[in-house]
């Protein structure tokens, strides 16, 4: 606690154990930050567990595709939710916003015959306005987000019922259904993969490009950091991480290519994750979200326009909820009055399982996505082995509690 040994060697990979560093543990000679990587290890273990329990059915091409498509809207919501939770707020209204925006999209496309791109745009704008409404009360009027969004949960559900006249509206135009449920075209035909059978060449090429792009950008980041004498992973660890990530991505892509090519929602989701990861890590706006959640007073006195930032993250949540609303409605081919029920709880759970801190200031987009996938895999895996829904709910509850308990424990360990 008392003295912190100063080192003048910034390139040392992991300094001697000291009280100023995060909790690290050593696995196979690789130093890990358990608070950050615990979630990924847990995800890997859960996947392995259900692969064994389902005798491999979990990782079958069609099932992987199902997991992605079935959870896409929760994952999209969890991206917006993690930003809000990092800022130290919460949004309980997203389920109702999903419903009302789905209803708006349905009314526009089905009842009024508005061309789908225009209708989609108008729906996203409507989502933004809903977010602005809530953001106003929270940021500028100073009502706690818990209350504002609890009210919003009721308000927007009521609005949904009004718009729909208490009945489902559908069916949706084909392009919208394709976005929710459909797959990319096989532009270049199939290619034989030996024992694995035929696979879509275009999907495989996209996978290779993604892996190549990731490896290149990671390499460039590493080189630049070395140029500034920053601590980086030693080369073998770096390569191991890249190869692992590449293997996971390529495995998923190959399986999808063998089934029905890439789901469009996966493409959309990948773009969103990339964009929002950049936003949180690199953008001034994203950094200010962390600063606000970490210490509100200090952020105010550092000249950060706190009200504006909070306002805009709620607008952002509204837009993402609208996107999720359209995708969900498109998937069911109908906007229904009960759409999106309890989605807010899934999105919040995803964020916390993914390592967000209850007090705010901590969290990652990729973490929230992983948290969402953990719940998705549990859902899917347990239904494959025929567990009743009450048991699924029980397991999800335990996982949420365990994840946050682990986070608190790791934090306390680090504080010693």
């Amino acid at each position, binding site marked *: *606690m008392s003295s912190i040994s*100063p080192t003048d060697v910034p390139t040392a990979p992991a300094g001697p*154990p*000291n009280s100023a560093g995060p909790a690290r543990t050593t696995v196979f000679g690789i130093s890990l930050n358990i608070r950050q990587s615990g979630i990924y290890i847990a995800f890997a273990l859960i996947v392995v567990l259900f692969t064994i329990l389902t005798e491999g059915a979990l990782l079958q091409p069609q099932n992987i595709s199902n997991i992605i498509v079935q959870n896409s809207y929760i994952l999209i919501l969890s991206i917006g939710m993690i930003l809000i939770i990092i800022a130290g707020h919460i949004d309980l209204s997203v389920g109702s916003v999903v419903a009302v925006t789905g209803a708006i999209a349905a009314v526009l496309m089905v009842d009024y015959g508005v061309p789908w791109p225009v209708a989609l745009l108008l729906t996203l704008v409507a989502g933004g306005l809903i977010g602005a409404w809530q953001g106003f009360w929270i940021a500028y009027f100073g009502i706690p987000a818990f209350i504002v969004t609890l009210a919003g949960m009721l308000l927007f559900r009521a609005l949904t019922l009004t718009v729909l006249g208490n009945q489902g509206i559908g069916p949706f135009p084909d392009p919208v259904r394709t976005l929710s449920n459909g797959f990319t075209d096989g532009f270049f035909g199939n290619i034989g993969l030996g024992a694995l059978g035929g696979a879509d060449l275009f999907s495989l090429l996209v996978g290779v490009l993604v892996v190549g792009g990731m490896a290149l950008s990671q390499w460039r980041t590493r080189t630049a950091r070395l140029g*500034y004498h920053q601590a980086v992973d030693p080369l073998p660890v770096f390569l191991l991480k890249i190869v692992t990530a590449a293997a996971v991505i390529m495995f998923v892509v190959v399986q999808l290519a063998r089934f029905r090519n890439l789901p469009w929602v996966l493409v959309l989701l990948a773009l969103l994750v990339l964009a929002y990861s950049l936003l949180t890590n690199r953008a001034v706006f994203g*950094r200010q979200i962390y600063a606000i959640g970490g*210490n509100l007073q200090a952020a*105010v006195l*550092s000249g950060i326009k706190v009200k504006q930032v909070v306002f805009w993250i709620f607008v952002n949540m509204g837009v993402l909820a609208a996107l999720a609303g359209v995708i969900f409605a498109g998937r069911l081919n109908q906007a229904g009055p009960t759409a999106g029920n309890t989605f807010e709880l899934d999105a919040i759970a995803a964020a916390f399982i993914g390592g967000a801190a209850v007090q705010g*200031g901590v969290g990652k987009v990729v973490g929230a996505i992983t948290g969402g996938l953990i719940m998705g895999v549990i859902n899917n895996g347990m239904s494959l082995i025929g567990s009743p829904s009450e048991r699924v709910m029980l397991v999800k509850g335990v996982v949420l509690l365990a994840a946050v308990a682990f986070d608190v424990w790791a934090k306390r360990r680090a504080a010693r």
Partner: protein
Amino acid sequence: MTDDILRMREITKTFPGVRALQDVNLSVRRGEIHAICGENGAGKSTLMKVLSGVYPHGSYEGEIAFDGQECRFAGIRDSEQRGIVIIHQELALCPQLSIAENIFLGNERSRRGLIDWNRTNHQARTLLDRVGLPENPVTTVSDIGVGKQQLVEIAKALSKEVRLLILDEPTAALNDEDSAHLLDLLRGLRAEGITCVIISHKLNEIAAIADRVTILRDGRSIETLDMGADDVTEDRIISGMVGRDLEHRYPPHEPSIGEEAFRIEDWTVHSPVQRDRVVVSGAGLSVRHGEIVGLAGLMGAGRTELAMSVFGRSYGVDISGRVYRDGRQVEIKSVRDAIGHGIAYATEDRKRYGLNLIEDIKRNISAADLGRLARRGWVDDNEEYRVAEGFRHDMNIKAPSVLSVTGKLSGGNQQKVVLSKWIFTDADVLILDEPTRGIDVGAKYEIYSIINRLADAGKAVLVISSELPELLGLCDRIYTMSAGHITGELPRHEATQERLMTLMTTLTSKDPTR
């Protein structure tokens, strides 16, 4: 023959990677006031946590004997049962509860599981009389000042029939008046036979009140001095604490003062809670380039309120007055405006208002001017790292790297991060509110050197401080404030502690309604 109430022998306590205490010995005589001195990180608080059972028996080596009996405390309740009560630096009161409820928190006066409010409030009244606090026991704690809250803590300790009272930095947050009252109270308790152990950075208080003083340095007990018998001076204690003679507590500095950089005129601020109460009244002051100007005043005089209201109206309502930068009048409506006009404000409470404690050094340094490191809204991480590393070297921030979390740094190093953050904004006017509060002697010297360097670089520095020797040692010119008014202005060579104190306690005639 000495009568020791407490004997701690060869206490060793290690944390992973750090030895916080090594073979520390402490013996306290019955009925004395025993001071413990040492730099931050010397192990004072750790030693007290060992004594009070926060670190239970078995987690440390060594022996503790209280009243001749060996003690093996498993927790705070054990030590409190023996009459050892610790009052922590950060007060542990519930602000929304009443004084009486706080006094008997966890120790409620009850009958058959229901609280006996008459007995609670009556006994609280008696205890409040004992500590000299003329407040109604049903008053909510958040409605009374920090000084009075400290007295409530002591009343709470007395309710537990305390025999050994440990006070960790009891006067750190108090003004001189409240501190004096507290010290008087401790003398009174000594007369009643209660033994006190007091941890303090304020050496003048120790000299005034303690019977003996034990000095810790780097986790070891160095010596115990008898204030009566040995010829103990403040400098003598300091040399024990730092292990060297600290001839000059303030680095020498030859100012080169230029044009006026910053001036406020007729500055008036009203309280945001009571809008008709004037907190700062018609204040005016100026600071020149290269000049270090002090602002002295007792707590509640309006110093912080003045600074924060100037800094982008961060405090107060109905603010009026004029601000000039380099001779030109400027409008400052927000913190961004203030930063834009080259004004920086480092708060008195760096943990609550200054730092994001869960973030690393790098991101704290860049927080106030992140835009400078960004192109079209995107931050250049590597440049940020380089800048932060530069500050870590220049400011001698003791941490393994700029990726260390600021919450784990010592007070002195945290303050260096705060200063780095504001220096990075390239401010020309730096308002430093209590820049050395809660910082040990060695780190204070470093902070003073940094302030001198800033002045040498042509910055205008306004230092707000409760420690008069600090202002006298550091500043070229000192303003005094009392009850919201600027009551005086003295150049360095005319200022003495006595003259400043007189001005700080003057109630001005400008405002006859007060």
